[in-house]
């Protein structure tokens, strides 16, 4: 009996750090990945990044589950992973509060949990990896101000005119991308002359941009909270014959989307919102090998312009 107590304590300590002695499933680490929604290209890319990073590690086995944007379905899927006794859990939660209990349950049961992109409440997880939308929005704003001040008339004193096409404004990424951008415009000679909620949707962005064009004879720059919306705005401006008069800036910088638009000259800049998929796999391996990992990782992001896109973009300052 006396021997059992230190052993139990040791086990408890291992659970807290997430370290484990050996894979439970026949020599392979089984990692469950709970994705909240595969309807968005960005999240499809996150899964692709995870899959690609894991290919280099045949000792890892990945199981993907897609909650189809349903909180309770994601909760059930995390519980299924716990029941299957996976070695590690990667979760990109749909929302914080309702997914905190299942994530905490997994963590307390000794399954290390890497939380990706969106947070859960409290401390019952091993590591959070995410990017900072506010910082990205601010960088976009600072870039926009610099670019606008290079227009001769703006330099000469005319206030620059911006159209902002927001993401879903009830979502935190939308709110942060707006707040960061607006912070960068403080005290600068720029006005937001039209703003509309595109709900992240390209067709909506095209419609809203048509309205912006109808009521604003002069627009200098369009800031869209995601690249599809920026692309939709570009198509609207092109249909009106005004695409050459306007600078288009978007966020996300996916290789098959934002980066392509920059290459094509549709967007002048796209700011990457990194998925963290590769970093999550790296962390998972370190955790499974028993190494200590920081509780929080903020991803740096790149931005792509016509000049740097071919070279893989530039890191934000």
């Amino acid at each position, binding site marked *: 009996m006396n021997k059992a107590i230190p052993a139990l304590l040791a086990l408890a300590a291992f659970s807290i750090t997430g370290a484990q002695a050996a894979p439970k499933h026949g020599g392979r680490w089984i990692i469950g990945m709970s994705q909240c929604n595969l309807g968005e*290209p960005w999240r499809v890319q996150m899964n692709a990044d995870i899959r690609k990073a894991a290919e280099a590690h045949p000792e890892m086995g990945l199981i993907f589950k897609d909650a189809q944007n349903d909180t309770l379905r994601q909760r059930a899927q995390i519980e299924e992973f716990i029941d299957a006794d996976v070695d590690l859990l990667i979760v990109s939660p749909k929302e914080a509060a309702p997914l905190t209990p299942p994530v905490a349950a997994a963590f307390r049961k000794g399954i290390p949990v890497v939380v990706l992109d969106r947070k859960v409440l409290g401390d019952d997880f091993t590591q959070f990896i995410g990017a900072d939308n506010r910082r990205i929005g601010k960088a976009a704003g600072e870039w926009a101000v610099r670019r606008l001040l290079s227009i001769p008339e703006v330099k000469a004193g005319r206030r620059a005119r911006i159209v902002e096409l927001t993401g879903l404004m009830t979502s935190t990424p939308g709110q942060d991308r707006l707040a960061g951008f607006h912070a960068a415009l403080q005290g600068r000679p720029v006005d937001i002359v*039209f703003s*509309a909620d595109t709900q992240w949707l390209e*067709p909506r962005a095209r419609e809203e941009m048509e*309205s912006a064009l*109808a009521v604003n004879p002069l627009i200098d720059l369009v800031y869209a909270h995601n690249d599809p919306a920026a692309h939709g705005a570009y198509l609207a401006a092109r249909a009106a014959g005004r695409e050459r008069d306007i600078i288009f800036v978007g966020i996300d910088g996916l*290789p*098959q989307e934002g980066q*392509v638009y920059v290459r094509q000259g549709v967007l002048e800049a796209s700011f990457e919102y990194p998925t963290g998929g590769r970093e999550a796999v790296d962390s998972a391996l370190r955790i499974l090998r028993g190494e200590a990992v920081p509780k929080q990782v903020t991803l740096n992001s790149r931005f792509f312009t016509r000049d740097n896109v071919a070279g893989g973009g530039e890191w934000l300052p």
Partner: protein
Amino acid sequence: MNPPPLRRWLATPAFRALLALAFVVAIGCAFNAGGAFFHWSTHRDMLRQVSVYGILACGMTLVIISGGIDLSVGSIVGLCAVLFARETLHEGQPALAALGLVLAAGAAIGLASGTLVARFRLQPFVATLAMMVFARGLAKWVSGGQKISQAIQHPDGSFSYVDLPAIFQRLDHRILGGNLSVVTLVFLGCVLLSWLVLEKLRYGRYIYATGGNEEAARLSGVPVARTKLLAYGLSGLFGAVGGICQAVQEQQGDPEAGSTYELTAIAIAVIGGNNLMGGRGGIGLTLLGALTIGTLEKILSINAVGESSRLMLTGAIIVAAVLLQRRRAG
């Protein structure tokens, strides 16, 4: 004792639908966003925006008059958008072959729904709800869950890029001196085709008869099952047309395209005055409904009304417009 012709005309559904449209136009004149509402280009853009919804509403009208409902059309838009993008952008098929394949695929999905309804006696709501889920899955499977665009990813993760085929520009283009979008013309073509089916073909009378009283229609020799197949098949075909129009406007095939479009299509048919019980209505009403919904959306958009107010106003104005129709009828 027949009422005078004017009074009779004032009581027609077409007049009531016009009244709802006039009501919305009056709102637009009052809130004209610095005169933007009085420019043709605003309405030209509105007509482009409402076209895909309107195309779906044409098929929806046929199905609704036949006494059914088709919830699958939004998913058919997504499926056909990715199919069209894949065939033209990634497979490099000639435009005509791609158009033929996609139209056939849409019609096949519609016919499958029709078979479930007509032969297996599933309720239209259930059959097309199942088809809505299935076709969305098919769209994601065909596209691998990714948007199909000009960027083609290779197994090693690198990308190559293809030029946009001419068919995209041809369809997302304006004619008549830049005053009318081609997709709007496609919409009007769908309206015309629906009108021909409903008003000029024997099958049109069958659709009304089936929706009015299915048993009576059967007893009087109407081929009810074939009539329903035709209605759902045409709805699927229009769904494919909508999907192609969506893809050319987005310059890509998005597997999520068309989500909830079926609800807008139903709203268009209903606000025009088509009866969800079936047996009555007409395609002209749907055209007026499309103009009403499109104009309403445009007014809210050019005035940059916030999302929360926009949703509440849309709901309130739709109710007001429908009530207005009812009052004049009484």
